[in-house]
């Protein structure tokens, strides 16, 4: 897998656990991406997606402080921004409308996320 595929891509990170958000951010930076966020709440995620005009992809944790990330996922779908879920949940916890979305189990493998974002982009 060639990590350079994310070079200069603007990637949003939504993850409420600081350690994980920070890890993803540094891995994305290493891969040459431009990181938007990270943000750890659904409010911040919605705000950032609404405000951002150029977004190439997003990585979404599903449970944000007990709230589900799905409204943000809907907004990304509307805006045709490819995204992947990073989660510890089983598929059954994800609504049917997102069944096509790649779900990366935690701990996430950045290569897999990169592939997922590239495929749909």
């Amino acid at each position, binding site marked *: 897998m060639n990590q350079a595929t994310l070079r200069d891509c603007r990637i949003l990170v939504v993850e*409420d656990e600081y*350690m994980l958000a920070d*890890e993803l951010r540094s891995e994305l930076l290493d891969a040459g991406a431009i990181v938007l966020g*990270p943000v750890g709440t659904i409010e911040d995620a919605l705000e950032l997606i609404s405000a951002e005009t150029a977004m190439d992809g997003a990585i979404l944790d599903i449970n944000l*402080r*007990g709230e589900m990330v799905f409204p943000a996922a809907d907004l990304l779908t509307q805006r045709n921004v490819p995204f992947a879920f990073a989660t*510890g*949940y089983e598929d059954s916890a994800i609504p049917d409308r997102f069944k096509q979305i790649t779900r990366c189990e935690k*701990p996430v493998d950045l290569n897999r996320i990169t592939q997922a974002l590239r495929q749909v982009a």
Partner: protein
Amino acid sequence: MLTGVINWSEAHYRMEGYEVGEVVPTYETWIARVHPDDRASTEKALSTARDKHTDYEHGFRSLHPDGTIRFLYARGIFFYDADGQPVRMIGIMEDVTDARSAEERLRASEEQFRQFGEASSDVLWLRDAETLQWVYLTPAFETIYGLDREQATSGNDLRNWVELILPEDREHAIGEIRRVRKGERAAFEYRVRRPVDGQIRWLRNTDFPIFDADGTVRQIGGIGRDITDERATAKRMEVLVAELQHRTRNLIAVVRSMADKTLRSSGDLSDFRSRFRERLDALARVQGLLSRLKEGDRVTFDELIHTELAAHGVTEGHYGSTIVEGPADVRLRSMTVQTLAMALHELATNAVKYGALGQSSGQLTITWSLEPSGPGNKPWLHIDWRETGIVMQPPGSAPRGSGQGRELIEQALPYQLDAKTSYKLLPDGVHCTISVPVSATTLEGNEHESSDPA
């Protein structure tokens, strides 16, 4: 009857517990073997038949000298002379003991089953296969369906039953009854609305055909169980398992990132080993605190700080010069506990290695207070960690520790817990403040709060 001569058959002797020919048959030898409790009624039956010129027909017990009891059934007719005086009687007596005990056993077994039926919390019923009307329905029906049996069985009771079922479940339920009527077994679930309170309950029926000797379905038997609570529990378990999955995965991801970070700041493997272990131990302590919680319970800050200090050798009651002061029972939001504990762990570790817990001149003062209505109208906890009397390393020397504690306090706590923090290296030691919103149940005792930690 005029002569008093009585003839007994051989069988008669035996029925009454005599050897054949043992006694001379008389009224007295006969009545002597009638059970004392049955004598009066037996004699009365006899005299009534005689006086009223009716057939004599009577059952009684015969008590033998060895204690045996036989059930006898006697029938007889009197003959009268022209004046209407009885002159002769002939009769037969039958030993019905075996038939009678079989009947009693049947009655006893029916009674047992009836009691099972009455006691069952499941509703048991039988329907006639032809009319589909109930011929048996146990009291559990009233508890489960919220309708008394009298009402339920008045008129066409199949229709009454169907009308209790939610419209969208009716067709399926009726279809299953039809299948059983054709001789199949069926297990199916449906919902009913209880007339008594409008509550909806889930039922699981296990129905089966009862066949005649010639193989036609004569009755339909059914066992109906209220599975409402069962279903709710199953659903709760599903949610809990999903939560557990989520938390475990998150925890493993945190451990992985912790390992990476520790590795990056470690000089060599043994350095990594001791630091990584300490951090893992701290994480394990938090999981221990969290897992001991009962539902609705919260970890309190004093519990957390005492646990963390104890792990660094500062045990309650042996604080020496260390001051640990603040209100007890400040309840932390569960999602904040892990990150807060890791921050306290880093502070304590640094204090042991470079600060007030490692230098004899050092003084550690930890104080905290609760602000009932802080920013966002939430209760806030303000923590003040102050080390004094420390000989600090000269500026420009190698940094204290890995900086992971500082990062946790300055970055992670604000990001993850909306905390407000400060971390300063003063000339005589560290001064750190952490303000964090805490569980509203601290004040109200019952306000709902998500207990998700991540």
